[in-house]
């Protein structure tokens, strides 16, 4: 009588291989989507380039995102703000024409939100800006981006815990800068 397991295992081999292949496949597909179809960098209604504005022309972030200095939300500039410059600047570019069409119809521009936090997180720009935290610390090198995207590069090394827009980023930064009660849950969740 045969008591060894080996023949039994042999019988199982094809099944085992199938399982392995499927697992590998799943991971592959997931990864492919995550890298080649990033959901965090959508096509905006107007191809606004932070590279041109913040990068090449060195317009300070707070010039347009005025709110950030005094309000929890940084806010997006009103259309009038864009027009303020572009009545003069680069008026011939097709994208600017598009902007002007919005302006003439008195329509707001439906920007798509890229940097989003869950509703139970109450982040305040004000405190961080007043604490002279570089915008790039969380938003990544915006001045180099033609189309805005959630950057997976965090500026301070310790912020590599997982995805930069996870709680880990906030915590590590709050720890390093020894924020008062910085790691108390109620600081962000309320």
């Amino acid at each position, binding site marked *: 009588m045969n008591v060894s397991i080996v023949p039994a295992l042999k019988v199982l081999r094809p099944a085992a291989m199938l399982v392995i292949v499927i697992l590998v496949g799943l991971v592959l597909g997931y990864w492919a989507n995550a890298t080649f179809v990033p959901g965090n960098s959508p096509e905006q209604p107007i191809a606004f380039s932070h590279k041109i504005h913040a990068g090449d022309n060195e317009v300070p972030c707070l010039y347009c995102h005025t709110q950030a200095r005094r309000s929890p939300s940084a806010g997006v500039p009103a259309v009038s703000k864009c027009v303020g410059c572009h009545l003069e600047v680069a008026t011939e570019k097709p994208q600017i024409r598009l902007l002007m069409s919005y302006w003439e119809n008195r329509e707001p521009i439906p920007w798509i939100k890229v940097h989003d936090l*869950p509703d139970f997180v109450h982040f305040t720009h004000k405190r961080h800006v007043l604490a002279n935290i570089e915008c790039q610390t969380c938003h990544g090198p915006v001045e180099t981006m033609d189309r805005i995207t959630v950057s997976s590069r965090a500026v301070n090394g310790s912020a590599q815990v997982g995805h930069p827009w996870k709680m880990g980023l906030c915590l590590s930064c709050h720890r390093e800068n020894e924020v008062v009660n910085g790691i*108390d*849950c109620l600081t962000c969740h309320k």
Partner: protein
Amino acid sequence: MSLFSRFMDGWRKYRKPGYYDEFDYHWTMTIDLDKCTGCEACVTACQAENNIPVVGEDEMAKGREMQWIRIERYWEGEYPNAKLSFIPMMCQHCDAAPCETVCPVGATYHNQDGLNAQIYNRCIGTRACAVYCPYEVRYFNYYDHEWDSPLEQQLNPDVTVRGKGVMEKCTFCIQRIRQAKDVAKDDDRRRVQDGEMQPACVQTCPTKALVFGDRKDHESQVYKSMNDPRNYRVLDELNTDSSVFYLKKVDA
């Protein structure tokens, strides 16, 4: 391993004697039962400030009210000598809170300001805290609540709207406390001044029966009134060491 050492710190702090004395603030409320008329203005104020849903008649009939602060009524004597006393009951923010020990995921804990915190997004809904709370002031979201449009436009953007399966309770209007601290920081003050910030219920109480403030500040109104000889704490025999002091009703 740093994570582990951090965990050990967290663990030790619970056993350190007098740990709670190290708070920056010690938020405290006093309720003068001699002034309380049971008008329930506080209830509506709380409901408006904290996005507390309206559950509807059927759910009410099942006993699933949500108001974070409720007015309890106690009759004494019979007609014609019947007397009625009201007592507002909300989270007592106990310094030795039974609910804090039982939550398996630490969704409710005591923060450095003497607040009994409830972190909605951490809660997994075991409801053990509600069982352990002797004041029965914890309310559970039995389903996702809806606001008939356009009522949702009233919702307070500073307060999270709770989803199903989450426990919730009075927070002493943490969003207002945070804002007051924010303002204090703006003009480089270390502390929030007395009366600078009030929870919705205290702010609206028409008889000024509710007083709120920082116990650490001995000049504060709340410190004075919590040292009134009439002060007592509900269910004090349970040693919950609560942060809400009641002032006895005066018979005259």
